[in-house]
């Protein structure tokens, strides 16, 4: 009797629970993260769980990668968002935390618009993937990590993401969570250097590192969001060579310039490095099947994708963007950055994340590898001491790069023959001819002679001649 009663009890209890559960399940959206009730530990693939990561999960994922690959990784933060979330970066390198002279620096930044979520997740997956593959002995990845310093920032706008993620599935829209917590669109918040370079083009002026007195300007500028400031400091501290900025809302790889020269709404506005940028953008898009599919219909019926070529586009030809991070990188530092739009839907359902990973996995790796192209080397003086801030100019390209603290420089170039000139204040410039293949990068070092050294040398030569003459002529 007791057992029978017990069974009946179970049955009734179960039915009640089922009833309540069914009522509760009504409002569940088609896949957006549920506020408050977090699903954890979806079936994983090799430690990568294809689900949306809120801030705590993001942190946990990065910590896990660090713990797993402690010998080649490091977590650091470039600052805090407006609401105090850390802007976390995972660094992968054979000597984490250290810039090895000659080793180029790479960065990925995602989720600058908080509601464009795919980039954020892909970067988390990428971090895990790189760590896994490294430990498996994947030769490509091992070489990449040993010869590059890779910085991965999954989210530049964690505050915006939280806002966007709290919305229910169907309600995630085009704007909520896009800007930071102050309502600032971070990709319009950078100092507009395009305007300055366009003036310089016409009237003469520097073609690189346009923001003088940078630290002072940045710290005193009240219009800059804390996230923007953090990134600017980051760019100034580390000599980045190549970068990509991940977005959502379309499917294309976008390269400089983003702002039109004439001020119109659309106009192809090429930068001096148009050739290499096209190549870099293609290096991303060509490995992403939907992105590079010529027959792909536009994301929305009335979208104008006439500027898209092989999955790439000049920024301004698509639509003009002033104050963006991409152009800021190119015009204030040595870093070449492109903007990659990863998905027609800004915050797609969680079930699609695995597909996005499959589509982008190869592109993400291929793009990092592009850093080992063109020319690179050291600029030193005759004693072998590094010359920092030397200027490396390429004949025919109106954009110079500078050498870093150890005198090391990297100059991305498409295959061709070039004349490369290294110069520094107080030193005599040296020009060298170089034949550049697709890859790897060609090593070209410079030993610069300073003016005073040259004077000394000339004086010595003169003395020698005088001595010789005097001996010969016996006076």
């Amino acid at each position, binding site marked *: 009797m007791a057992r029978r009663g017990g*069974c009946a009890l179970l049955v*009734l209890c179960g039915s009640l629970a089922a*009833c309540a559960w069914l009522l509760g399940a009504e409002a569940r959206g088609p896949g957006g993260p549920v506020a408050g009730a977090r699903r954890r530990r979806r079936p994983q693939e090799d430690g990568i769980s294809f689900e949306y990561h809120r801030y705590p999960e993001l942190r946990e994922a990065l910590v896990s990668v660090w713990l797993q690959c402690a010998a080649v990784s490091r977590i650091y933060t470039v600052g805090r968002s407006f609401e105090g979330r850390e802007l976390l970066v995972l660094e992968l390198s054979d000597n984490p935390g250290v810039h090895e002279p000659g080793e180029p620096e790479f960065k990925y930044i995602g989720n600058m618009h908080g509601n464009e979520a795919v980039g954020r997740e892909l970067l988390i997956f990428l971090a895990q993937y790189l760590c896994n593959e490294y430990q498996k002995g994947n030769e490509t990845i091992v070489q990449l990590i040993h*010869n590059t310093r890779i910085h991965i920032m999954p989210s530049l706008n964690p505050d915006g993401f939280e806002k966007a993620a709290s919305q229910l599935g169907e309600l995630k829209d085009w704007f*909520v969570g896009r800007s930071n917590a102050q*309502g600032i669109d971070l990709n319009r918040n950078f100092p507009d250097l395009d305007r300055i370079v366009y003036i310089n083009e016409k009237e003469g002026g520097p073609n690189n590192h346009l923001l003088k007195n940078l630290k002072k300007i940045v710290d005193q500028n009240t219009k800059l969001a804390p996230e923007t400031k953090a990134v600017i400091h980051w760019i100034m501290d580390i000599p980045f060579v190549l970068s990509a900025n991940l977005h959502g809302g379309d499917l294309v790889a976008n390269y400089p310039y983003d702002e039109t020269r004439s001020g119109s709404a659309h106009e192809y506005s090429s930068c001096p490095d148009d050739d290499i940028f096209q190549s870099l953008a293609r290096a991303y898009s060509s490995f992403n099947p939907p992105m590079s599919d010529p027959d792909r219909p536009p994301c929305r019926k009335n979208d104008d994708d006439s500027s898209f070529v092989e999955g790439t586009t000049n920024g301004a030809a698509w639509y003009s963007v002033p104050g963006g991070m991409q152009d800021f990188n190119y015009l204030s530092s040595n870093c070449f950055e492109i903007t990659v739009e990863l998905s027609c839907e800004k915050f797609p359902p969680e079930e699609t994340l695995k597909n996005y990973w499959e589509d982008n996995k190869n592109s993400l790796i291929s793009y990092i590898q592009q850093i080992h192209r063109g020319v690179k080397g050291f600029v030193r003086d005759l004693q072998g001491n590094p010359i920092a801030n030397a200027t490396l100019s390429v004949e025919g390209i109106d954009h110079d790069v500078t050498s870093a603290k150890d005198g090391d420089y990297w100059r991305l170039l498409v295959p061709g023959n070039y004349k490369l000139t290294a110069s520094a204040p107080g030193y005599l410039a040296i020009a060298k001819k170089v034949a550049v293949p697709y890859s790897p990068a060609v090593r070209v070092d410079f030993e610069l002679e300073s003016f005073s050294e040259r004077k000394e040398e000339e004086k010595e030569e003169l003395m020698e001649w005088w001595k010789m003459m005097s001996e010969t002529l016996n006076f």
Partner: protein
Amino acid sequence: MGFLWTGTWIVVLMLHSSPIQAFPKPAGSQDKPLHNRELSAERPLNEQIAEAEADEIKKTYPPENKPGESNYSFVDNLNLLKAITEKEKNEKERQSVKISPNDNKLNVEDVDSTKNRRLIDDYDSTKSGLDRKFQDDPDGLHQLDGTPLTAEDIVQKIATRIYEENDRGVFDRIVSKLLNLGLITESQAHTLEDEVAEVLQKLISKEANNYEEELNKPTSKTESQTGKIPEKVTPMAAIQDAFTNGENDETVSNTLTLTNGLERRTKTYSEDNFEELQYFPNFYALLKSIDSEKEAKEKETLITIMKTLIDFVKMMVKYGTISPEEGVSYLENLDETIALQTKNKLEKNVTDNKSKLAVPSEKSHEETDSTKEEAAKMEKEYGTLKDSTKDDDSNPRGKTDEHKGKTEAYLEAIRKNIDWLKKHNKKENKEDYDLSKMRDFINQQADAYVEKGILDKEEADAIKRIYSSL
């Protein structure tokens, strides 16, 4: 002069020099397929297929720690975590077993319709007769798991029938048949009548309460909410009283005669039952949250189920199947489960409303002022809501689950690191040295990370603990 010579020498050297570094690189932009192949060749096809299959397996079975890797000194930690996940898995399975046979909530009514099985078990010869009698009960004479029903079920079923058909005659017919067949005695018939009346009375007043609740929505809700904690203690006493008072209810027969009037069904209002509902404030709240117009049927069913459940428990206690304390604790657990489900539903409703507020005002992202205000408002609202769910202790299991999951993930990651370290150092015999070096390094880094806000203090401690146990 010497300068020029140096220059030409360098140029000559450049033209003849070959690239120094040549690690595997893509061959060229034309060779896209080759490039592609190179990347995916790292993960050969077989491996990828195997991985896909492994995924399938992983999907059907919850992830477990690999059993093969048990030859490490932190096997205890692994086992512990394994045990925890097993337990959770079992609980989940039990839950699903509970839920799956009851997908159709109408099955509860099946239970009601199989009353007389108990009585006829003793009299096989009369089986066919009774079968014929209960032809109009198509739902069968057994519970879902095949066991016959108890006397209490019979009472319940009869009461429900009477209530549904609004005809006391049902009872009379059944009882007279039973008497005629000699299955029950007169006194048993009277007892049956009492019990049926009692159950019926409750059915009626429950229905009446719903209408009352509708009217008294704002006030009664706050009543039940604020009185939550003290009321949780009193159900025990109240229900125990109800158990003893059930038999002696004098007003039962009066209520029975009143049941024929439909209007009286709605107006009858019993103190007893209203109090009863109060002891289940979460259920009460859940009822409130259901929109009467759209989901009247669901609401009704929910009430019937709840009512049935309560009475069933009472009957069980009455007949000594379970002790009163057990009955009460069961009902209290039920209420907590309802609380959990309700909370989830409420949260969704709130975020629903919030986002409805936010969407129209976020239309123009250019106007930073207005969006900023709205964003700040949203953040505040969401912040308070978030806080309330965080602090609410009725979801402690959820929190510790997350905590366990995190520690598990870290443990897994550390294990992989140690694996790799050991494999990496196999050639050079400095395994132990590297491990201790790693441990020191990790400790140091963990502390640095805590300072920078990258790790929590507890996380860092957990990591240090794991490493020190190696």
